[in-house]
């Protein structure tokens, strides 16, 4: 797969949807493509975070350690962007990501990510927009959950 295909993949990720293709190409060029075999972990819950990953092909489970052992809480596939929270606010990984099939990713190191945001503020705005959407979504999910609980009780 060449860099052009990676640019295509990046374009499909909402976070980068509005960013100029030449910038995406630079990001693709500067990032490392990393392939994980089924069963390999991208990172483990509690690790320090140094990079985020963009899924180009394949899928992975999101696993959270609970008192009853590891629990798969979600499954991410193509065009997903994971691990960005840890690099944005320096918190340990909140979950484990484990490849379920052969998984092709673009590894965006913390340094690269911040360099890109610094140099291309439009990317920073885009990141803010996506995060705001997530908060909005989480808030509405929270409201829904509250309502559901209050209805039950």
């Amino acid at each position: 797969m060449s860099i052009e295909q990676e640019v295509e993949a990046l374009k499909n990720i909402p976070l980068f949807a509005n960013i100029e293709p030449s910038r995406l190409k630079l990001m693709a060029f500067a990032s490392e493509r990393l392939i994980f075999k089924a069963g390999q972990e991208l990172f483990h819950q509690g690790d320090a975070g140094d990079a985020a990953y963009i899924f180009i092909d394949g899928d992975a489970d999101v696993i959270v350690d609970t008192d009853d052992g590891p629990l798969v809480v979600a499954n991410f596939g193509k065009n997903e962007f994971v691990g960005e929270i840890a690099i944005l606010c320096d918190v340990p990984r909140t979950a484990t990501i484990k490849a379920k099939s052969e998984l092709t990713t673009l590894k965006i190191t913390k340094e690269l990510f911040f360099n890109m945001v610094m140099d291309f503020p439009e990317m920073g705005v885009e990141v803010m927009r996506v995060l705001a959407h997530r908060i909005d979504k989480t808030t509405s999910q929270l409201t829904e959950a509250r309502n559901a609980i209050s209805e039950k009780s």
Partner: protein
Amino acid sequence: MEPQLFKYIWKHSKKDQVRILFLVLASMPFYFLSLDLPKSIINKAVNSENFAGFNSTLPFMRFELPFGEEIFGRTVILFEGFDLSQLVLLLALCLSFLSLVLVNGVFKFVINTLKGRLGERMLRRLRYELADRILRFPVLHSRRIKQAEIATMIKDEVEPLGGFIGDSIVTPFFLGGQALTAMIFIMVQSFWLGLVAMSIVLVQAFVIPKLRKRILTLGRQRQITARALAGRVSELVGGAVEIQAHDTSNFERAEISHRLGKIFKIRYEIYQRKFFVKFLNNLLAQITPFIFYLGGGYLVITGQFEIGTLVAVLAAYKDLPPPVKDLINWDQQRNDVQIKYEQVVEQFQPMGMIDPDKQVLEEGNNEVLKGDVVASSLTLIDESENKLLDGVSFSFGVNQRVAVVGNASSGKEYLGLLLANLVKSTSGSVKISDKSLDQLPSAITGRRLSYVGQDAYLFPLSVMDNLFYGLRNWMVNDSPHDPATKDEALRDKQEAARTGNTILNPMGEWVDYKSAGIDDPVQLVPRVTDVLRNVDLEEDVYRFGLSGIVDIESRPDIAESILGAREALKEHLKSIGAEDLVNAFDPESYNKNATLRENLLFGTPRNSDYAGDRLLAMPILREAVDEAELRDSIYNMGLSIARTMVELFTGLPPTHPFFEQFSFISADDLPEFDMIVKRADKSSFSDISKSDREALMHLPFDYVEARHRLGLVTDEVEVKILNARKLLAKKLEERDPEAVEFYDPERFNSAASIQDNILFGRLAYGRAEAGETIGHVMTELLDDLGLRSDVIEVGLSYNVGVGGNRLSAVQRQKLALARALIKKPDLLILNEAAAVMDSQSQNKLVPSIMEAQGEQGIVWTLQRAELSRHFQYIIVMQNGRIVESGTYNELNVEGKVLKSLIAAE
């Protein structure tokens, strides 16, 4: 050493000097004759008055007894001679003149050669003696001196002495003899003219040295300032980090400039004075002929003097000023080297030099130290009258484990140095088995004791040579191979002995393996590995081995095994489903994880002309590329790369880290390439200028398809590259077969490291944890195949660099510990030897070294008091005194100093 240079010279070279002197004396009559002959030629042979007719003859080579008339009242003829006619006489006299010139020349040649040899011998002796003295410096003195200064002294400052020594005694005789001969000759011809010449010479001899006094003082200053400059220059290197880190380079520049200014002033004044003296000298020398021409001319005109005599006087006088001048120069040089000698010798007489008898070569060192180490009221006072140790007394068994603790000012470091006999106490004594330590020869203290300080020095040799450095105590066997012939070896030895040098051969066998417990060569690597493991250095040496190169000539078996490991690695990776982690070198296919350069050369360069960017300039590569019709493809790759780079990086600030990390083109060159790409896009290939084409064609050689992912190596290009690879290999084999070792799956690559040989390919880009997995698998595999010790053996030949700078500080210290352990000392003295290590490593190291020492004793001055719990006996020091001693349990209680020291950590 002799304080006076002349005494030194006389003491060591009187025989040679006398021999040369004898030769000089023997040459004198011939010299005199050669002066006399021109007169005879003119007065006897040329002057026709002596010959009445054509057939008249005069005697030739007729010898009369000198002063015969005065003594016997008649002429005593020793040899009648031959009667010769005028022309034959002329011929005979001229031929005699020629042969005398020849004889004088041969004398000069022989004398000069002998003088040169004598000078070089004395220089060798002097340098050896100075070096010998360095080896006997007390260590505290060695710490204070500047290495560069002491090195310039031995190398440069004594050098002129060598030139002078050959001349020191002979020259005044020779020149004096010459001057005297010339003088006597003038005197014989004309007493008054001689007197004139003599008086002027006397004036010269009296005035000139006076004028030169100041020059000598300046010479002394010049020597000292130049030496200090050498010291400062070495500080610029030694302090490079501090200078750059604190931005003091301009201060250093000013400092150097100031020094150079001072040296300039001194040297300039020397020149001024020197040339003034020269001027005066010349003037005085020319006054004499002035008088000769005037007075002599007058005498000839008035008929009181034969013209031939005047010519002879002038010819003799021609020979007078040079020896006089040289004599004056010799005197100047004498003063100069005397100063140099004094200045150097002065620096080599520190207080407390080690007695040479203590270092006498001794073979046996089997006298095992037993009994107790007893120190009684040890006191050590430094130069500024500080008491570093004050009445220290203790006693413990040689085989005990003793810790010395205390803070930095406690003096424990000095106690360690004293115990190792490296420093002598001001008063008091240390005795081991009732023998005073400072009375023991170094053959015992240096072999039965082992010492490691805080910052141990490593020699720029291999790990192995450093490890066994401590066992090079005496020459076990002479080398049969070096020097090549027996005669040469004998000559070398005689020459060395003649100048007081040691006759031992450093190329011989020096390492006493038996003392290290190695009786058989096969035990060597296991024993070394054990010791390395004791100091936790085994893994490091193993890594050196992995990236080291096997000498296939001496170890074909290792090479063979490694080929086996290459195969085994492939199998193993396949079995765990990880074969995609390595992209193996295949002569028949393009390796997408390697650079284009590597794919073309497909081998490891042995000749550095084929390494790095230099390869691109090699005509042989260009030919191969052209023949494979690859030129256009490379050009197109370059153009694509340039286009992509321009597209991606334009607009980024030039200092952006991406340029360093990812770009093929530097920020400075980017605009240039922007233009090139624009030009290339506008015109067809044939219109592109040569320089543009060159610039673009340089770009793709570092391109790695799997890493950069620009999709440039298409199937079609691949085929061409493989073709070019084959053509290049063929050409190289024809023209420069030794230059490159090609990748061959069936063969060991003797130019590549063990690691590269096993891997035989490139790690695949973009495979998660590829490096870790392969490293792990490789180690396991080498262990399974029993190759670990072979890899370590290769690692042992790793060169540690100058002062061990290719090792980390911790590795250096560990190697020094191993060097001390392998000697199997009766008492191991460690003077904060683990201070550079972190506490965890120290905690591990202490018990491990104890175990390695077995039944033998250890004295360890500890940086961390807490570690003393491993020891049988603890000495606690404060301000140079012992405040308490005992076992850990006794001292680690409330109210004791040890407890407080541990608490403070």
